[in-house]
């Protein structure tokens, strides 16, 4: 098992390096930070543009590989460089990651848990009322764009707030400034509900469909029948023998989706006014901020591969067939 993990880990480092290099080079070639300073009135003198760009290591007059070298040597030391506004990428990163994490941790966990539950129940009650209801709802949610769902949620929240006569759901931002202690905590939660809900809905709709299929496969499997022939009743057989096998294929799937979601919830963040990773990415591309884009690419690569690595280890722990090497 230890050698299996080590091998996977070596594999993972190589892939991160490849992904980040490709990400940096692509950003450095496609984005043109000089544009930010052109066409201004009064015009910015050429030498001061160069001096700003040199300072942030984005001067297109230097060879790409040279800039890449500088960036990498910084990254190795833990310094992600400066943004186009000459601020530390590291600081921006620290602020943003916490925001994204707060938003996504609930969304992912609840999405996965409810998705699995609904999927399993749908499979057990195939074609019954429960299955059909959640089946159709899932299709509706999956075929609705995220921003539409978000806006509908907002309208719904406003409607509820009006009826209640006080603000239960906040529709924009992460919290109301100038609060402290438990008031801040409660206020933060009120802000979190809507964006989390937007993510949870999509997650549940998606996961439940997959889990339902995987569970149906297991329900028809011979070994579940053997378990019942041994004397387990339906429910025991399902929980002791069915669930673990049915969740196996989902483990990989969860891990990857979580990794992607952290940087991929751009719409949700934008609509609810959360300044997280996704929102940052869009802004960085718009402002030709090569270093920020590269930092996000690096972060995503690490996350996705780490998630995959975790999934592999998880599957190996759960499934003895994978362990044998």
């Amino acid at each position, binding site marked *: 098992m230890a050698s299996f993990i080590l*091998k996977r880990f*070596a*594999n993972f480092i*190589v892939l991160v390096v490849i992904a980040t290099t490709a990400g940096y080079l692509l950003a450095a070639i496609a984005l043109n930070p000089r544009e930010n300073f052109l066409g201004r009135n009064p015009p910015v003198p050429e030498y001061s543009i160069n001096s700003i760009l040199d300072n942030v290591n984005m001067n297109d007059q230097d060879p790409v590989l040279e800039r890449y070298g500088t960036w990498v040597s910084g990254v190795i030391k833990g310094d992600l460089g400066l943004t186009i506004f000459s601020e530390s990428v590291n600081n921006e990163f620290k602020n943003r990651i916490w925001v994204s994490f707060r938003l996504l941790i609930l969304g992912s966990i609840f999405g996965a848990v409810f998705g699995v539950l609904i999927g399993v129940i749908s499979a057990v009650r195939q074609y019954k009322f429960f299955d059909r209801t959640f089946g159709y709802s899932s299709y509706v949610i999956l075929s609705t764009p995220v921003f539409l769902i978000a806006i509908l949620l907002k309208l719904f929240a406003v409607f509820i707030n009006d009826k209640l006569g006080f603000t239960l759901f906040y529709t924009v931002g992460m919290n109301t400034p100038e609060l402290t202690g438990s008031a801040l905590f409660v206020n933060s939660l009120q802000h979190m509900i809507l964006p989390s809900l937007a993510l949870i809905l999509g997650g549940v709709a998606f996961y439940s469909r997959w889990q339902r299929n995987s569970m149906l496969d297991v329900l028809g*499997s*011979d*070994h579940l*029948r*053997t*378990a*019942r*022939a*041994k*004397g*387990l*009743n*339906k429910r*025991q057989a399902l929980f*002791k*023998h069915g669930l*673990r*096998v049915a969740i*196996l294929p989902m483990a990989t799937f969860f891990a990857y989706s979580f990794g992607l979601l952290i940087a991929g919830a751009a719409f949700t963040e934008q609509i609810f006014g959360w300044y997280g990773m996704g929102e940052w990415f869009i802004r960085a591309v718009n402002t030709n901020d090569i270093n920020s884009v590269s930092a996000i690419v690096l972060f995503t690569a690490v996350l996705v591969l780490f998630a995959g690595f975790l999934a592999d280890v998880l599957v190996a722990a*759960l*499934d*003895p*067939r994978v362990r*044998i090497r």
Partner: protein
Amino acid sequence: MTSQAILQIKNLSISFPSESGMVQAVRNVSLDIYPGEVLGLVGESGSGKSVLSLSTIGLLPNSATVTGEVILNGRNLLELNDQEMSKHRGKDISMIFQDPLSALNPVQTIGHQIAEALLIHQDISYEQAFQRAGELLDEMRIPKPFERAKSYPHEFSGGMRQRVMIALAIANAPKIILADEPSTALDVTVQAQVLQLLKRASELTGAAVVLVTHDMGVVAGLADRIAIMYSGRIVEEGPIEQVFAKPGMPYTVGLIRSIPRIDAKQKRKLVSIAGSPPLPVDLPPGCAFAPRCPARQDICETKLPELESLSGEQRVACLRKDEIQNLIATGDLYSTEETSTIDQSKSGETILSVENLSKSFPVFKGAVLRRRIGSVHAVDDISFSLSEGRCLAIVGESGCGKTTTLLEIMNLVAPEKGRIVVFGKDVSEISKSERLALRKDLQIVFQDPFASLDPRMPIGEIIIEQLQVFKVPKVEQMARMQELLEIVGLDPAHANRFPAEFSGGQRQRIAIARALALNPKILILDEPVSALDVSVRAGVLNLLADLQKKLRISYLLVSHDLSVVQHVADFVAVMYLGSVVESGPVDTVFNHPRHPYTQALLSAVPIPDPVAEKTRERIILEGELPSPMNPPSGCRFHNRCHVRQTLAPKDQEHCATTRPVLLAQAGNLVACHHPIGQ
């Protein structure tokens, strides 16, 4: 029977909803099961035998509608809910399923799964249960049982897993063991081992065994009593010797006579039961077998025969049950004619010869840095030849390399090692156009006619497509297609129907028609009847025999079923782990096998005759087929060989170190240092 039945099935009917109406899977069945007996429940697929057995253990799908009674200890099991029924499952009634590969939970250890079965019904600690699991594995002759209890199912072979299933079934000393085709998915030598263990299991626990199977041979060897099902009803039931000796139902007669027998002295044409089993939807009021029955009278179509006593304990559901024996005597019911064997002295021209053919597959390891760690020698230095108008059969267990051999020949390119010569041409020297022309003369019929025909193409077009490839003029295509359908015994008017509208036997006929379309000289048959129901197998085998005589075509047959080989082939090559261990004319090889493996293989084949089957001596091989990745040294069979055990230590050593070559031995070619009969 004088003793009290332990399980009584009374007027049981089971039906399922389906798109075309209610499927009546079991119709008004009554059956008693007595302590300690082995009851063979025989029927073709769709006869309701599996549904019947599942209903007694309460594992029918929820959609089933069940009426009647299943009485155990004075309680009607059908009235129990899942909670109450689960107290009986595994304790009073246990079950062994057909496919051991999927019947065990892949993520739990074998020992844990057996221990769980014990813990459900017994008040013992987990350690005790796990210990008992090891003992049970030991009872089932699994080597190093306590170590193996910690292994996962994928670390066991199919035969071993079936032993685990039997151990699981006897864990709580049940009163009844239901075994649903327990050996069908296994190789013939492993089947013999498993059936022996099943017998042992019943002796150990005193449990009654209900052996559900389609194989009359398996039943003949094991069962005390037999019940034959057709279309959801029991049509004949009684002591096994009596039923085999004096069957009282035409279906039973046909079934017994439709099976090729490996111990047949004289080749006879097999009885072919016309038609195919009816769909169990909207069954006619009369006897369900009537449309196929040669002894049918008008009344059979309208009056449903009840299962009534014929003589002694034998019960038969046939309106003419008292006349059947007379009909057989006068030759009016399923009489068989002897077939003339081909004169073997007159040898035809050799049209296919394979010399020293080898084929290996590389084995890789690692994901990032893939490296070759060895090879599987699927076929290792084999030679054989096929003459015009003859049938050569390659037999052997799964993994012996028979299919690889076929594919190498069909490839028509230079093999890895050795030579393949077709019609005098070495395939490594022919041009592309010659190769295409050769394909015309070399056609194949695959094992599974349900998978080998395009479901979205009418059967006529399936055949015509073959003609188009070789540019047969359009005007001739239609006529040729109709002629072909007629040759294989199908109605040309059905040419525009889709494969789904035909039964398994008919589909295999279509596949044969397609293969024959271009007048090939060699027809390669890859397990042509193993996917078919027993009653239609005979029809296809007879067709193949007729075609060979009529068209003077040569067959290269691959099969694991030795009785089929015995019936169809002229010459046989027995393969073990990639090499030929014995070859020669079928009669000599089968009647006087020289190689111990051939002998064991033949002895493992069940004969559909309870008297012969229960008295003959069996050689049951130890262990299973070794992995072809690291085959045993010397003679590849030496570690399983029963003859070697009787040899002097010096000779035993010789077998383990020196590989024998094929040498002529009284008409056969045998690769053995100590052939039998010397």
